[in-house]
């Protein structure tokens, strides 16, 4: 229940939005889809003094083919990521990840930029973005900068974002035509947060692996895997070792989550290898 006064801004230009955010960086919050922020406000765990909505800022919801990568605006909604032909053709694992986020209503409101900025450890995009070596484009009143996804996530719901910065977009490298990819997750029910999830991009016998859900921030690993049982086991074991700071909660102990990181990493690699063109 939102019970305290706050200021609400709905700027219609990016520089205006960034200026407002700079002015209100102490206690201000950015609103895009609001799918994580509004529940937090309603539960009383978040009490912003100002809310700057990006929803009327033009140019943040583009999705285009930029040669060797896709450029996806921060305000692109999950259902677009899920269904866009460019994403499905060039980063199918990203579309797969988008398609299993929460439910239909959430996917029509929630944004990829918002999810990345919120950095929930169980968010579906995170292992995909580190597996693909995506770049996060940030902007503030004082300029723009790029951060690799592999360096962007710092801790549970903590990122490289400064208080007055927003995620304006992502550059997502394409999966090569001869490569294959997969995204797999374990969750208790449809739409609930992943206990463990894994993304894999395979080119030849080189696999770029992202593991999420089990750990505070997504884990990235480059492994070599020829598809043999022994090589799959070795890759899965590497994922297991990399998840030593797995955390536990009601849905699974740390021990369980770490074990699931092994199981789902193996499955993602196996499926990515099988999907090679």
């Amino acid at each position, binding site marked *: 229940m939102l019970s305290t006064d706050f200021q609400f801004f709905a700027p219609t230009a990016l520089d205006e939005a960034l200026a407002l955010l700079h002015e209100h960086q102490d206690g201000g919050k950015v609103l895009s889809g609001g799918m994580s922020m509004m529940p937090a406000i309603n539960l009383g765990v978040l009490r912003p003094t100002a809310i700057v909505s990006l929803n009327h800022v033009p140019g943040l919801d583009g999705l285009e083919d930029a040669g060797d990568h896709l450029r996806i605006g921060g305000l692109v909604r999950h259902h677009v990521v899920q269904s866009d032909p460019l994403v499905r053709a060039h980063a199918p694992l990203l579309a797969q990840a988008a398609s299993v986020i929460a439910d239909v209503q959430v996917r029509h409101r929630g944004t990829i930029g918002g999810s990345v900025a919120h950095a929930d450890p169980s968010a579906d995009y995170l292992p995909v973005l580190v597996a693909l070596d995506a770049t996060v484009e940030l902007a503030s009143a004082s300029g723009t900068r790029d951060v690799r996804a592999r360096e962007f996530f710092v801790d549970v719901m903590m990122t490289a974002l400064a208080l007055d910065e927003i995620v304006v977009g992502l550059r997502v490298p394409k999966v090569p035509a001869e490569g294959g990819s997969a995204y797999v997750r374990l969750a208790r*029910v449809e739409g609930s947060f992943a206990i463990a999830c894994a993304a894999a991009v395979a080119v030849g016998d080189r696999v770029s692996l992202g593991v999420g859900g089990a750990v505070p921030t997504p884990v990235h690993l480059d492994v070599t895997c020829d598809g043999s049982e022994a090589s799959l086991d070795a890759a899965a074991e590497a994922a297991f070792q990399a998840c030593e700071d797995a955390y536990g909660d009601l849905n699974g102990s740390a021990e369980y989550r770490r074990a699931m990181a092994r199981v789902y990493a193996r499955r993602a690699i196996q499926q990515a290898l099988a999907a090679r063109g």
Partner: protein
Amino acid sequence: MSYVGQSIPMLTNAQLVAGKGTFTDDVQLPGMTFMAVLRSPYAHARIRSIDTAAAEALPGVLAVVTGQEILENTNPIPETYDTAAVGARGVEWYSLCIDRARYVGEAVAAVVAEDRFAAYEALDLIEVDYEELPAVTDPVAAMEEGSPLVEPSWGTNVMASRDIRLGDPDAAFAEADGVVEGVVSSARITGAAIEPRGCVASWDPYKEILTFWDSTQAPHAVRMYLAKTLGMADTSIRVIQPHVGGAFGLKLPTFQEEPLCAYMAMKLGRPVKWIETRAENLLVGGHARDTSFRYQAAYRSDGELIGIRLDVIADIGVPSALCGWGMSFVTWYCLPCVYKCQNSETHLRSVVTNKCPWNAYRGYGKDAASLLMERIMDHIARETGLDRTEVRFRNFVQPDEFPYSQVSGAMLDSGNYPGALRKVMDMIGYEDFPALKEQALAEGRRIGLGIAMELTPEGCSMPGSLMLNGTDSTEVRVTPNGNVIVLTGVTSPGSGNETGIAQIVADGLGCDIARISVVQGDTESCPWGFGNYSSRSIIIGGSAAGVAAKDINDKMRKVAAGMLEIAEDDLDQVDEAFVVRGAAERRVEFADVAREVYSNPHGKNMEGIEPMLQSVRQWKQGNVYHQPEKQGRFSAYPSWPYGAAAAIVEVDPESGHVRILRYCLVEDAGTIVNPLLADANLHGGIAQGIGGAMYEQIAYDEAGQSLTATFMDYTLPTAVELPTLELGHQATPAPFTPLGTKGVGESGVGGALGALCSAIEDALPEIDMQLTALPLSPSRIWAAIQDARAREGAPA
């Protein structure tokens, strides 16, 4: 034609599907104010002082109330389940904590403001000086010497206990071929109704009437309890139950907020609305089922169960005025459910802890009893090598043994347990399953089949209770225009009993159901009654309705015979007309007879007949035994529906993830008034059963803080997790109700618990995995697999 037995769509469908129902939060009154409740952040704390000045100074705030004012101006909330009558300990529970808060969420203070935003904002401005006290959250620890006491004046945390020996358990264990022993526990859960609780109170100082809209199940009981709590005449209170978005027992009175809201409305002279948030509902809306069992079962080599020794521990949270803790007694009382076992020794401990109190929840303890017995049956099958169904067939109460006197004193009314099990085995393809399983294994898929019985006694009637009561009343009125109003003492939480009762009345009157309007949930217009719980609305309210309709029909037949100038014996009723037998063209219409009654009371057709067409009739259940000294037994339940469930699951042994592939239930609820609505109730019951079996759990940390404040943490199954539910019916009419109805509101819950445990174990027969704790979450199943493999020395 007869309406009873027809699948008539629910009469409220059009209104509810259009979103045009009136739920409590839809009630809007001029000058409405809003109440918010400050809740204890501690599991146990002394309240040293409360400073309300800053909250009162906030613009829009009308009043802040604390425990001291409540103590001075109101009475304790009456118990709905008389603790003294059953030798249990009780407490004086007020609408606000007086000097001590006993669980996280207990109501400490309340604010009424012009709108809900100001009310919630003011909560943050109330300064409470708490002295934190030691809390206990584990029921076993709560029974140990030196444990913190939830109620220091008791000197113990055991609220109620039962130590009962039936037959000769020592001899049974001595002569047994084998004994199995183990533990079983079911998690703390809640009902998660789509509409949380809420109420609106409005005081008219001139009429001196308090009107109280409440998302409740029992308006008349609420009226009586409010009157007692507020110290006023119950006739000065009108309780209206608007549409209710699910109740499941958890909306049985009386919670702290109900009298609190009424008190504030009377104090301020303004209408007050209180609407619970989802987080509050999970925290304070009533919990259930948190029960653990330690069992020993003695058996013969042919699978016959000959003795049970049992320790039952129910973690009932803090003591309150709610009736939920009685579930722990019902669990014991149902044993050994559908089986025969004359020798038992039971030790039941209903233990208080610093957690949310139990309130009634669908299943009311019967679910836990079924879980235990089905786990024991599977355990005996595992030890003897007999088929799981064979052990059950060996132990069933047989169809020719009804009415069956169970060891607890319960008188099981009727049934055919082996028939139901055979039927569900046919539905699921029990005989062919091994081949299916083999084939799945060849594809790398692990599937398993489980079965379980459930026993779900209904129509609860407790001596001395003004809520759990085996009587009810219904009024039927036929208007001069030939339309029919039915006013019931029972209510509907959305389950459709108004439709079933209309069917019963239409049959009784011989009229079209379109003539019938049903009015429920208003103490001003409806006759005295106890509302809905324990599946009583059709079996008690419906029976009263049938009797009242017959009164009116008897009178209309006499008048119709007069109008047709024939003897009543020569009269037939066909399609809304009273006709001369054998000469159907000589007829008078239903509406014409109604008009004749009202318009010619002094005419020849009404000679010697009481005027008007109105009848209020009461129904008292048979097969209830409240006089043990005379009747030789005590039994609170007249009606004993049961079911047989079968499930097929696929288990991912690497992750412990389970998918339910098929789910079948054969249910015997006696005569079914409306198959469509009975099935709809079963769908909900099975879904809640599966939820409790596999997903749901209210969790606390050791300090008594809730870990399940939202649906992100309290995991509920969605439509995706539920398979198509396959239902079969078997109807053994109840001998003690006029139509043979038994009640279907709680069926489907209990069987899910055992069936899913059984199915998951069956999927991995190569390992000796025993599932002993609910919910069957992937992590728990994975851990059980690891344990079993470790025990066998196999690599994990």
